């Protein structure tokens, strides 16, 4: 599973084979592997009596082969960000460089052509209601003037891939939400894109269907070598399939990095809050002083670390919450502990946990956090 994680993209990836020649050879390896470079992006919405800064100086690199999660609370600006990636929304500042080409400097026609290389799926599926499933999948091919017969063949093939061959003649209204999203995925793949943008693609689905759609996206990432950008408000989506993540808070990138790294050691308030939320459970239920969050990895869960710690220091700790998660195929235990009042013991306990390979984050700022979000 780590194959995807660093996909070493790109040596031997098709993108490179196109022989970009001497120019690229001069570039550093990282630059070659960048699929989308988001460069100081800003977006301001202005109405007569209001000015909203939806994005503020966002800079990110999304690598070839990534499943890149962009996560944030609602209103954080993530939907605006994904719409700026294909210029459905024109940024007010900055640029988006896809495969080395600046979207800002493209003519409308060039931009339309570029968009066929970066497909998009949506929370509400957005299928054409008056066309059959097959005709929906054919639609992007129709736009690209692919002959009808060839388009149908390809569409049938893609419907097979998403497991809906038998629904080709049906209309979207006759399908369940999960099936509609599968059709949308097949439609998105029809133009042979190199990037798939997912805007809250699983937010309208139940947990089981969400899992199935995420598995399908993962499979597509591997078999079609498509870079996937996932916009979501659910950490579970990120931990399940993303290898890298950016946390967006109030239009800014709060934190970015490998999912495991961000999960183990969230550094910012926004990150802590998102990392600790899962599904409907909100972090705000936990409050108190001297809280820490400890993350176990697979091997550390064999030893009864907490019990041993309590025995060793002779002071009780309060377990506020315990959870296990599957992060990119690795089992992770997560615990929120309330440590004793004695500062000396607290420091020793933290050291003890770190020594045993646990990641420890202070949640001392939790109270302020709650006040800030709930207030």
């Amino acid at each position, binding site marked *: 599973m780590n194959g995807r994680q660093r996909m070493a993209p790109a040596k031997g990836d098709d993108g490179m084979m196109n022989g970009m020649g001497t120019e690229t050879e001069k570039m550093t390896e990282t630059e070659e592997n960048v699929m989308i470079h988001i460069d100081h992006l800003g977006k301001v919405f202005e109405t007569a009596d209001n000015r909203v800064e939806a994005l503020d100086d966002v800079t990110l690199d999304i690598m070839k082969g990534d499943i890149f999660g962009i996560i944030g609370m609602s209103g954080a600006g993530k939907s605006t960000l994904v719409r700026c990636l*294909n210029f*459905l929304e024109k940024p007010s500042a900055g640029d988006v460089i896809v495969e080395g080409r600046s979207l800002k400097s493209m003519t409308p026609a060039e931009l*339309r*052509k*570029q*968009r*066929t290389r970066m*497909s*998009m799926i*949506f929370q*509400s599926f*957005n*299928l*054409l*209601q*008056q*066309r059959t499933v097959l005709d929906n999948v054919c*639609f*992007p091919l*129709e*736009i*690209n003037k692919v002959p009808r017969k060839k388009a149908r063949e390809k569409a049938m093939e893609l419907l097979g891939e998403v497991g809906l061959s038998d629904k080709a003649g049906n*209309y*979207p*209204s*006759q399908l369940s939400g999960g099936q509609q999203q599968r059709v*949308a995925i097949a*439609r998105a793949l029809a*133009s042979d894109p190199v990037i798939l*943008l997912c805007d809250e693609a699983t937010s309208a689905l139940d947990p089981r269907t969400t899992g199935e759609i995420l598995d399908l996206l993962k499979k597509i990432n591997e078999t079609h070598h498509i870079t996937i950008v996932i916009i979501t408000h659910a950490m579970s989506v990120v931990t399940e399939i993303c290898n890298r993540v950016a946390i967006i808070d109030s239009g800014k990138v709060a934190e970015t990095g490998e999912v495991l790294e961000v999960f183990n050691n969230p550094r910012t308030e926004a990150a802590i809050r998102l990392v600790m939320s899962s599904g409907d459970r909100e972090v705000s239920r936990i409050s108190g002083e001297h809280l820490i969050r400890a993350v176990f990895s697979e091997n550390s869960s064999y030893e009864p670390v907490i019990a041993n710690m309590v025995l060793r220091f002779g002071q009780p700790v309060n377990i506020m919450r315990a959870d296990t998660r599957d992060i990119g195929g690795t089992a992770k235990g997560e615990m929120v502990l309330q440590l004793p009042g004695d500062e000396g013991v607290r420091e020793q306990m933290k050291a003890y946990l770190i020594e045993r390979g646990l990641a420890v984050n202070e949640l001392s700022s939790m109270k302020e956090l709650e006040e800030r979000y709930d207030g």
Partner: protein
Amino acid sequence: MADFFEEYGTLLAENTGITLYMVFASTLIAYVIGIPMGIGLVVTAKDGLHPNRIVYRILDVTVNIIRSIPFLILLILIMPLTKVIVGKTYGPSATVVPLVMSAAPFIARMVESSLLEVDHGVIEAAQSMGANDRVIVFKVMMKEARTSLITGATIALATILGYSAMAGTVGGGGLGNVAIQYGYYRYQTPVMIATVVLLVAMVQIMQAAGMKLGKALDHRTSG
């Protein structure tokens, strides 16, 4: 009863034909003008595909002005224009001119409202696939709004039928003319009733057929 039909049957049949000619001819021409206007309103609106304040304002104001002139007044007002186009100011063909003039803006508004009903997300999806504006208007908006457009056309037909009867009273021909000439001036109430029955029947048939067609072509609801 038999006597009545013997005496007026031909007259009524003939004038039903004239009314149908006026209604369908003017609806058709009004749509040829109204559809582009409706599309223009949607495309150039503030949140449209190609916002253009000037074009939008011109279309918007033109439509509003014409729509606020009562049909009978419009009919008289544009008689000089009718004469230029048709060559005379009376008769069925001459009536088509004011009918078109009056119905086109009305149709433009109905087309506009039908197109605005199309889910913005679907349009966004098409844009994300690289569709140009022409594809979005004709293959996405018009097709998704099909049922609403047909319902609109049904309403337009019934409205134009009503206008045509009105035009008939001032020399336009058709059933309205029969009603006024025979029913009113000659006090022949049965003729008046017969024209009303025919007009009601026409509206009913158009309405039923339009709804049925619209429903048959709608795939939004399952089944």
